[in-house]
């Protein structure tokens, strides 16, 4: 058994951390709420090659695995980067038979968004082309986007009505399902990064803030809350790695692993972000502090691509059908 990142993946994570901490931040996420741009933005992500990680090399991508992408996505989540690598991962699966469209995904010349009916779609704002499943067919088209006041502006959420469409593939249900599962994995990976960073912010503050004559992190009420949040992050990491590995190497396990990771990610990020605010006290409840930006990500991501109840039911259905294996 070898359930650990390899040296290349660790190096990729370190490189991604450097890129994302230099090109996006919670402060950018705050500015995006005040009508600023989403950072690092599509062209920067394309420039470093992150939009094409799972795009084949002959279509201009890196031809790497979903696990490789998940490792990068964790770092993107830690700084609340946008647009999301979820979209890149999902579109790469859907466009697998269309090298020209894949090339436009990888080089950033086309901004894609993937639609689940009328549900708010990630990165719909700023997209030029929309992918959807209509009557079992995969279609690509232009559309009109409507949106509300954002809760987390980095997600670029909007509802889309297609105004024209062309069919890319008939009978695309299976591919669509795989693409959605891969999207769940990458979303869970981004949430892993965000949750880990929220816990880290709380831990750093608990070491320096004093009350009643000592650091607040020495109080068990504070310490135990942070530990529970951290344990959740490490458990989530295991599910994300398993699900990403399954996407690459064990497609039969992917539906169970992806649903489990997404359901657990929702709960984990909510707890981490909520704990981060509570550990900070009043300052954590201010606009200026970064805590609410992680909280916003949690409150949005738990509903995006299906909520916890939906994915827990999926897990239950698969378990009842005999999916527990290893």
């Amino acid at each position, binding site marked *: *058994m070898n359930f650990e990142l390899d040296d290349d993946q660790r190096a990729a994570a370190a490189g991604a951390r450097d890129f994302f901490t230099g090109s996006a931040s919670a402060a950018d996420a705050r500015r995006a709420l005040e009508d600023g741009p989403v950072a690092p933005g599509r062209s920067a992500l394309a420039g470093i090659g992150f939009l094409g990680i799972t795009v084949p090399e002959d279509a201009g991508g890196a031809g790497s695995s979903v696990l490789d992408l998940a490792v990068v996505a964790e770092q993107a989540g830690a700084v609340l980067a946008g647009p999301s690598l979820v979209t890149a991962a999902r579109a790469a699966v859907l466009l697998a038979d269309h090298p020209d469209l894949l090339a436009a995904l990888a080089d950033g010349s086309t901004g894609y968004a993937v639609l689940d009916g009328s549900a708010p779609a990630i990165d719909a704002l700023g997209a030029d082309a929309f992918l959807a499943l209509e009557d079992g067919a995969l279609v690509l088209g232009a559309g009109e986007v409507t949106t509300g006041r954002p809760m987390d502006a980095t997600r670029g959420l909007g509802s889309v009505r297609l105004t024209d469409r062309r069919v890319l593939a008939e009978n695309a249900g299976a591919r669509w399902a795989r693409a959605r599962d891969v999207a769940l994995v990458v979303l869970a990976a981004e949430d892993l990064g965000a949750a880990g960073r929220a816990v880290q912010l709380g831990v750093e503050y608990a070491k320096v803030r004093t009350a009643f004559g000592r650091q607040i992190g020495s109080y*068990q009420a504070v310490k135990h809350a942070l530990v529970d949040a*951290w344990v959740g992050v490490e458990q989530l990491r295991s599910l994300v790695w398993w699900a990403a590995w399954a996407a690459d190497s064990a497609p039969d396990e992917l539906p169970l692993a992806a649903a489990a990771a997404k359901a657990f990610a929702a709960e984990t990020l909510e707890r981490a972000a909520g704990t981060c605010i509570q550990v900070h006290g009043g300052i954590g409840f201010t606009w200026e502090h970064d805590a609410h930006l992680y909280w916003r990500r949690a409150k949005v991501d738990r509903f995006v691509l299906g909520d916890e109840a939906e994915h*827990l039911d999926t897990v*239950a259905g698969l378990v009842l059908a005999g999916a527990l294996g290893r």
Partner: protein
Amino acid sequence: MDFDDTPDEAAYRARVRSLLEEHAAELVHLDAGEEAADAAEQQQALRRTQRVLADAGLVGVSWAREHGGQAGTLAQQAIVNQELARARVPTLINHIGLGMCGPTVVAHGTPEQHERYLARLLRAEDVWCQLFSEPASGSDLAALRTTAVRHGDEWVVNGQKVWTTLAHVADHGILLARTDGDRPKHAGLTMFIVDMHAPGVTVRPLRQLGGQSDFNEVFFDDVHVPDSDRLGEPGEGWRVALTTLLNERVAVGGGGNDLGLSVESLAALAVERVPQLPPERQVLARQALGRAAVAALANRYTGYRRYTAISRGGLPGPEASAGKLAGTTAAELVADAGVRLLGDDAVYGRGPDGDDGRWQRNQAWLPGIAIAGGTNEVLRNIIGERVLGLPPEPREDKTAPFNGGRR
């Protein structure tokens, strides 16, 4: 990344599996959650089981040959644990000895002590217990009050231990006692090996919440322990005890196994029971099943990370200390989902027909798991301070003389 055995591991697993098949008739087998009919008979059968396994080279796999072990790896030990579980062989009777007492004797014992105790421990010729907790010192172990006073070549022990698993069948125990009350609490302790059949040792089984008696209180009234059974130097008892506690965490964290009934057991129950529920109840049952399965899978795959670290020859990383916390949570979700699926039978310890009571027993066992081997609150302190680097609570008890104005 993969979940396959290496060729060496696969060969080892195959050998273990064939040994377990070869000796199947000599081993005890129990289904998950199943209870043996006759406890005394079961004790003998469990001792025999361990002896057979030891003679087949399947006990003390990672121990050095000079100590009676197989000089194998921790990964091989984990493979044996997995194969024993697969073959429905219950936990070895000397699990406290193998997991905690033995490694402590190995680390701190003299060659004479190694010679005298370890081979018999491996074959369950002697069963061991761990005499640490006391009525007034559970989590605060170093506050213990059992005393050992030196008289020439002997020590005389007086006091009381409690929550001592297996004391009622044990032949030996490792005993942490206070030998110098004038020193700070951690500095006045010494570890001993004690003969549980010695005059002055009285064992009284305690009946647990669920009705069973797995643990005991143990009284020491002028019990004489030869100095040759001192484990480590006088005053070094806390350092020796930390070896025990570290091994306890490795023993608990190494395999990534489920605590209590497995999620597979829950799945089997759900397949049977969920379709019988009205639709609105099915929705709730599926949510509970899904939540329990996700928690159990998260814990299981985190266990695979520990296993990977072990199989590379390392000790488990920080995630090991979190295994018991997450494992307890998952076990409680699995147990609760299982009990809920019993419907009306859930209000009985065992339903009037059909139901064998295993889910109720499982439910009644779990509160103890959150306490045993370090309470979940103590583990949170350990993770908070050692992993996250949070400051400890101020502790004036660490430096003050233990006896000073406190008794």
